[in-house]
């Protein structure tokens, strides 16, 4: 990879040893809409704000939470178009793994490959880093897992994490509320409460998105009426 006319990296070291383009990419993530993920004992939930630029936008045409495989889902904070590229590449990698091994790709491996793509774009010629951080959630033979991948390509496994505009408040809230033996239903309620904390305006099933995966290993995005039901429970 690398554009021939630009056979030099645009991401280079500053005198203090920092990769400034990556720092700027993290700024882009930090100004994106808040998203978060919580790993429960029997599943994982991811949630995000879905604030659209106008009421004229058809919200059914937008889905921020995407599937990478039937048992792995992903949500992003930052630049939407960049996330589409990563989702597309990861889907292909997952499919290539399946074709070779006739087994669904383990989550750790998919995360590693996605992160490798993101790292490539911080070093290859003529490209800029991705302006997104991803939360990858799934359930495989190693149980429920949640990973966060940053524009630099570094990734960590999290019990609960948040990204985007409201990251510090959200993380403080999650730290207080998280327990190791949380059930998936509790995690969904906690996720909603965390989003509600920093939400500007009236929260509803139309302006947030929630994705869950349980022991059935089928990642799915909740419908807006299901979200409204959960919101009523939380009131």
């Amino acid at each position, binding site marked *: 990879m690398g*554009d*021939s*006319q*630009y056979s030099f990296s*645009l*991401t*280079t070291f*500053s*005198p*203090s040893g*920092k990769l*400034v*383009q990556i*720092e*700027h*990419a*993290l*700024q*882009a*993530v*930090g*100004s994106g809409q808040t998203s978060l993920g919580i790993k429960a004992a029997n599943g994982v939930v991811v949630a995000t704000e879905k604030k*659209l*630029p*106008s*009421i*004229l*936008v*058809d919200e*059914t*045409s*937008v889905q921020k939470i995407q599937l990478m495989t039937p048992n792995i889902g992903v949500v992003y904070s930052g*630049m*939407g*178009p*960049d996330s*589409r*590229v990563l989702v*597309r590449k990861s889907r292909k990698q997952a499919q290539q793994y399946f074709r070779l091994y006739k087994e669904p790709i383990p989550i750790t491996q998919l995360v590693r490959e996605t992160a490798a793509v993101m790292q490539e*774009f911080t070093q290859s010629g*003529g*490209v*800029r*880093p*991705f*302006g997104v951080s991803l939360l990858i959630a799934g359930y495989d033979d190693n149980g429920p897992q949640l990973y966060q991948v940053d524009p630099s390509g570094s990734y960590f496994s999290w019990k609960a994490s948040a990204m985007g505009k409201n990251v510090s408040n959200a993380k403080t809230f999650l730290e207080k509320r998280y327990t190791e033996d949380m059930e998936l239903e509790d995690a969904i309620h906690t996720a909603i409460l965390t989003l509600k904390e920093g939400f500007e305006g009236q929260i509803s099933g139309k302006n947030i998105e929630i994705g869950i995966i349980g022991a059935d290993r089928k990642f799915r995005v909740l419908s807006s009426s299901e979200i409204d039901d959960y919101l009523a429970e939380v009131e």
Partner: protein
Amino acid sequence: MSRGTGAGYDRHITIFSPEGRLYQVEYAFKAVKAAGVTSIGVRGKDSVCVVTQKKVPDKLLDQTSVTHLFPITKYLGLLATGMTADARSLVSQARNEAAEFRFKWGYEMPVDVLSKWIADKAQVYTQHAYMRPLGVASMVLGIDEEKGPQLFKCDPAGHFFGHKATSAGLKEQEAINFLEKKMKNDPAFSYDETVQTAISALQSVLQEDFKATEIEVGVVTEKDPVFIVLSTEEIDEHLTAISERD
């Protein structure tokens, strides 16, 4: 470190600025406005209509060759707002892509798939330094087999959304404000109402009454899901209907 970007090229190619912005993409949005034209799209109950100004800068120009409305396939239309040359390049590639889709998969390329393709192409230009972003906002319209009438807008940043109504170009924000009021209660416009809402939105925002030769109108309807560019006579009928209504 403020020098950290390396001689400040963040305004020249699509790399991040210190605030995490892409200046080249933002400038591409300005180029869309600089063309001086405003476009409007409205989705009705069983039809979609797009309208744009037809500015012919020179009387010696052949008016029929000045257009921003392009059929991509028989069933899909694209209204390009912004730099005409970039638009033609995009349309040419989109036509190729739609034709290949039909050949490969045996059915017509749906509206949202084409819009995603256009938006993904736009994203590539925001990430690779060797190509600048295109100074075009595209509105794609068509009738989807399952979802009915669809109107999508794709912008230089690579975003794309489905819209009930939208606008692009010089008076984009004013038009969106106008349309938000009109569409607030989710009205289900008939074909005539759709076309007339779109045209009257443009007239209101630009504060002038048009002659049929000064605007271009493109439609698709569920009854006949072919992308059609209205003739001047048909546009005149709608203009008359609007002025009689007011």
